[in-house]
Every structure is written in structure tokens, then in C-alpha cells.
């Protein structure tokens, strides 16, 4: 408590002391925007896409903005230090792009009430902290459809990162839609306990292939599973977070792309105009936050058409990927016929739907 109060006062004292400096620095009227990344910008997945969003902000506003970023920031006290440093250096808006930055973001935001913070994938907000995330499960529905049609062994492998609601939603959504087009389909899930570790991800992919999987979905960020699938031959994969087009047309037959650029541009604009508000944004395919990468020619035309039709109906809001009747893994009822899942349940999803085997790691 004491520390917080002190830093609050310290920050204010500093801000006062710096007013001169800030004036000097801002006579060009640049808005400084900070980005805190959990991985290296070259990870080819999660952080890479956030950094593309940052570049889009630079391209959009030119010399009206200045963006700074720090990569590979561990989720803990280091994150708090990096955010504070950005705020002290005059950033007006800071994007913190990993779930583990949640408490640090809230802590730092308290000390800098005039700086706006945007935290990705979390659930805590404050007057100057908004959250944003993407409905990746919408993309998983499209993937599941393609995967269910493409598998010949009827075994689909899934590389999970951490057993958190976002990942579990993806597994459920993919399974429901694979099952819909192929009732014999079976999911094998390997938990890698990492977001980015090429060696572990490749091991996971090889394990799944040895167990007979001929389609692999991944919720980890590196291209290592793609390379493992390519080496194995007749195995299909999907790009994750980023398009991973270098593995097209095979093994990568489509992808889920995180497209943060429109959102980042919108929020930076809001800060420039003074219209920024703390909101919880959760956008999907419709607003363009989730993109479906090109479905390659390795996929038969009718499957492609089916997948695109599903994508369009999700985008228009006509169809919700979690529509009843659906039961939980233990056989208990979840959604009645025609009922759709509410965001609250989805946000904290910690159960498998009926048909999935195995337990969620505890």
C-alpha cells in the first residue's frame, strides 16, 4: 500500500518536474504510443502480429505518432518496470499484449491516471485501462470444418498452449464443427505449456503424427509444427496467429490471422481526439479482428465453399459457433436447442464439450 501511495506521489512530482521537458519534447505534437510484447517480434506468430499492428499505426499517422516497443518482457515485476518507464518517457497510450500483464497494467495505470492503457486478453479494467481480445473461436469453427473434411484417419491433433479459457474455447469450437461434418472424428490434445518454443512444439506435432493424426491444429505461435508436418508428408496444418503462408499450399491449408491493425489505429485516433474510453472489446471475424488466411488448392473446392459460407454466416452474425443443443463432457446439459452461449460463460470456459476425451490439466 505504502509503495503505491509513494509511487503515486513520486509520479506526480516527476510529472510536475517534467512539464518543462514534456513541452520541449511535444512541440512536434507527436503522440507517443508504447507496446509491451511477451515474445520476440520475430516469433512469426502472436508478437509478430502485434508488431505489424504497431507498424500499421506508424504508417497511418506518419509523423504524428511515435511508437516504442520492448520485446520479450517477462510477465511480472519486469513488465511493471517497462510500462512505468514508457509512461515516464511520455507515452500517452500503452498496449500491453499478454494476459500475464494484467495485474502489472492495473498497478501502473493507477500511478499514471493521464496515460491510457489497453490490455490484451484480460478481464480487469479501470478508468484508464481498457481490454481487447479477439474471438478466435470463430476462426476455430472454420478450421474445424475444414479439418473434419480433410482428415482420412479421422484423428485430428491439437497442440494446446496453456489450459486457459481462450485455448479451451478454441478446442471446443474446432471439435464441434469437425464433428458436425464428420461424426467419426476424434481429437488428440497435447499440452505444450508454452506459447512459443519451437522445439517443444515440434515434439508435440511429431507425437500427434505418430498417434495417427493427419490434421494438426495449433494454439502455439511458432512455425515448428508446420515444419514437422511438412517433413512427415501427408499431414495438414493451419497457420496460427500469423498467416504462415511460407508453408502453403501444403501442409498449411488455411490460417487464423490476428489482425490488430484496425483496432490499434482506432484507439490511437481516439487518444489523439480525446475521445478514448475504457471499454472491453471482443471482436471477431465480422469487424476484421480475426482473419481467415487463404484456403489453398489442397482443399477440395466444395469444402472450401462450405468453410467460406460458414465464415460469412459467422461474420454477419447469423450463426454463433456455440449454438445448442450442446452438452458438456460429463454429459450434463449446457445449451438447449437453438440457444447460444453468453459471453460470460465463454470468457471463463473451463470445460470440454461432450465427445472430447481426456481431462483439462489441473
Amino acid at each position, binding site marked *: 500500500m505504502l509503495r503505491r501511495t509513494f509511487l503515486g506521489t513520486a509520479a506526480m512530482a516527476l510529472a510536475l518536474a517534467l512539464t518543462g521537458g514534456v513541452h520541449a519534447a511535444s512541440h512536434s505534437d507527436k503522440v507517443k504510443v508504447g507496446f509491451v510484447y511477451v515474445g520476440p517480434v520475430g516469433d512469426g506468430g502472436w508478437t509478430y502480429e502485434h508488431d505489424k499492428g504497431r507498424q500499421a499505426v506508424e504508417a497511418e499517422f506518419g509523423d504524428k505518432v511515435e511508437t516504442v516497443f520492448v520485446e520479450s518482457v517477462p510477465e511480472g515485476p519486469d513488465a511493471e*518496470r517497462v510500462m512505468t518507464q514508457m509512461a515516464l518517457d511520455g507515452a500517452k497510450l500503452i498496449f500491453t499484449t499478454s494476459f500475464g500483464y494484467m495485474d502489472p497494467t492495473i498497478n501502473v495505470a493507477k500511478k499514471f491516471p493521464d496515460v491510457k492503457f489497453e490490455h490484451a486478453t484480460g478481464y480487469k479494467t479501470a478508468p484508464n485501462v481498457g481490454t481487447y481480445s479477439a474471438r478466435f473461436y470463430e476462426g476455430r469453427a472454420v478450421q474445424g470444418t475444414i479439418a473434419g473434411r480433410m482428415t482420412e484417419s479421422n484423428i485430428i491433433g491439437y497442440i494446446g498452449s496453456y489450459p486457459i479459457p481462450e485455448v479451451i474455447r478454441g478446442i471446443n469450437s474446432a471439435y464441434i464443427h469437425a464433428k458436425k461434418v464428420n461424426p467419426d472424428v476424434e481429437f488428440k490434445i497435447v499440452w505444450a*505449456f508454452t506459447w512459443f518454443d519451437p522445439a517443444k512444439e515440434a515434439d508435440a506435432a511429431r507425437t500427434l503424427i505418430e498417434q495417427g493424426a493427419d490434421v494438426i491444429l495449433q494454439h502455439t505461435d511458432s512455425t515448428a509444427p508446420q515444419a514437422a508436418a511438412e517433413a512427415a508428408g501427408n499431414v495438414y496444418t493451419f497457420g496460427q496467429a500469423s498467416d504462415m503462408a511460407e508453408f502453403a499450399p501444403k501442409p498449411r491449408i488455411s490460417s487464423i490471422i490476428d489482425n490488430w491493425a484496425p483496432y490499434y489505429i482506432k484507439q490511437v485516433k481516439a487518444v489523439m481526439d480525446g475521445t478514448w474510453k475504457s471499454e472491453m472489446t471482443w471482436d471477431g471475424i465480422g469487424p476484421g479482428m480475426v482473419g481467415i488466411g487463404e484456403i489453398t488448392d489442397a482443399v477440395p473446392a466444395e469444402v472450401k465453399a462450405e468453410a467460406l459460407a460458414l465464415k460469412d454466416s459467422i461474420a454477419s452474425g447469423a450463426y454463433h459457433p456455440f449454438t445448442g443443443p450442446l452438452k458438456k463432457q460429463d454429459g450434463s446439459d449446457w445449451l438447449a436447442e437453438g440457444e447460444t452461449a453468453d459471453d460470460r460463460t465463454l470468457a471463463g470456459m473451463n470445460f470440454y464439450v461432450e465427445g472430447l476425451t481426456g481431462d483439462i490439466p489441473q
Partner: protein
Amino acid sequence: MLKLEKRRQPSRAWAWGAPVVAVIATILAGGLLFALDGTDPVAVIRTIFWDPLFGQHASFYRPQLLVKAAPLVLIAIGLSLGFRAGIWNIGAEGQYIIGALTGAGCALAFYPMEGWFIFPLMVICGALGGCLWAMIPAALKVVFGTNEILVSLMLVYVAEKILASMSLGLLKNPEGYGFPGSRNLAQYPSAHNAEIVAGTGMHWGVAAALIAVIFAYVLLNRHLLGFQIRLTGEAPRAARFAGVVPARLVVFCLGASGALAGLAGMFEVAGPSGQISIDFNVGYGFTAIIVAFLGRLHPVGILLAGLLMALTYVGGGISQSAQGLPAATIQMFQGMLLFFLLAFDVLTNYRLRLTRREVA
């Protein structure tokens, strides 16, 4: 031609001079690299080594240096005891994790009760957890003669799995909407490792690190056990004649370093970090090995080395956003530091001699 010639006595001047020369060489070599990369080397070096101490926002960064250095020093002090005796505990990272888990677990067992005894109990649990984890390689070494380097290192990965399991299961915050990670101890006053003097960065872990430095100094210089540790490292045969029981020394050195690493983890989870999460550990246990050697395995040296290492972390973070340097730069910097140190260490035992090439 240049020739290395063994000194009759290790040079005292070089023993203390090597770290300083290594730091200077790292700065020069790093600067050269930045220059080749097209960044202004003077600005980068200034950002890393000067700004956190005397720059515009130094009043924020100086306490951060203590926060960052405390676990490094605490762990490195423990490691140095073993390293001096030739007992190699490479698994401090694992002991750090287990100490954090037992410390936080103890606190969460009492949640939401408040009481003055909770924090001291956490300290004991943290030290005990780290110590017990280190007892595994110690016991295996004493009983079966296994290699403590391999066993302690492998146990790091086991500890990481336990950490993941705890974050997702037993210690998971019941009010966390299903997300992994424990309750935030910073919001639990009885368990919070708050700053002793607000705004200084001085939390109990920093105090413990300073106490450990003094304790280790006294132990090594004034105590029979310290003498035995040094003797075993320098002359194992003589040590046996002097009545040193190797098994007892193995247990003491691994136990002490495990307990200190456990303490570091406990203070970190109760203070700066606040919660157990899957990615709680950030490599302090490994970086502390560099700190121990950079500090010449001497308590005061380790204190200085820990602060220097903290400076590279804090300054490195600033240079990333200020000059757009990649994160790998700072790892490279730390790597170069150890590399140059080992290189210049040669001069402690050898001297360079310019000789004429002899005709065969």
C-alpha cells in the same frame, strides 16, 4: 611471440582486476557492435549504465535496481559457498521456484485470515522448501555418488512442471475466472512483502540479501566451517587430512544455497511479483551463477556484481524503447561479460611473456 607462463603465485591484482577489466572490455566490444549496427554506441552505453543511476528518471530506477539485484545476490551468495568447495549447485532456479511455491502456499493456506505471524512463517516455509529441494541432489550425491550438477539441473524442469500444475490447480485463484495464477499476495496485507521504507525498493528480500552477504563474509573468514569450505575447494586432500567430512559439507553447501534460493523465490512472489503464475521464474537462478563468478565468489564482490547485473537488465529495458535495440542485445551483453571475465581470469594464474621464436 606471445607466450603464457604460469605464475608461481596467483596474482592478487589480477584476481580483483579481471572483473573490472571484463566490464570495460564488454562496454567497448558492445559499443563496437552497436556502431556496426548503425546505432550511436555512446548513447546506448549511456542509456544502459548511466541513465538508471543518474538520468532523468533515476529516482524510479534506483529502487528498481535493488528489486532486481536482491534475488540475484541472495541466490549467488548461496551458490558461492558450494562453488568454493567444488560443489556445483546448478539448479538454483528450481529451488527458487519451490521456495516461492511453499512460501505462497503457506500464505494462501491462511487466506483470508490476517495475523502478524503469517509473513515470518512464509519466510520459514520458503527457506525450507528451497532447502528440501536441494536436499534431493545432496542426498543422491552422498548416498549414491551421483553428479549434483546433472541432478540439480534436471530438477529445475521438474520444478517448472510443479509450478505449472500449481498455477492451474491447487493454488489457482478461485476468483480468477478460470485463468491460471494464484491470488495476488500484494492484496493480502499479512502476506505482502512490502517495502520497509516506502519508495526505496528496500523490501525484506533486499534486507535478507544484505544479511546474507554479512553472514557469508563472517562464515568464510571467521568460522571453522568457512575454512573447511575454502580448504576443500583449494586442496581436497589436505582437507581430508584436516578432518573435513565431505558428506557433511555437501549437505551444508547444497542445503544453504537451496534455502537462500528458496528465500529469494518467496520474497519475490510475496512482493514484486505478487502471484504464482506459470511463467513466474525468469531465470534468476541461472543468472546468479554469472553473478557469483563475476563477484569472485566473494560476498562483497557478489553484492557489487548483482547490482551491476541488475543495471544491465534495467538499462537494457530502457535502451530497448529508447534506441529500439532488440531484447537479445542485453543477453548478449551479459554473455560477453562472463566470456571476458573468464578470458581475463587466465591472467590471474598466468602471465603474458614476449619471447623470441627459437630456431629448432
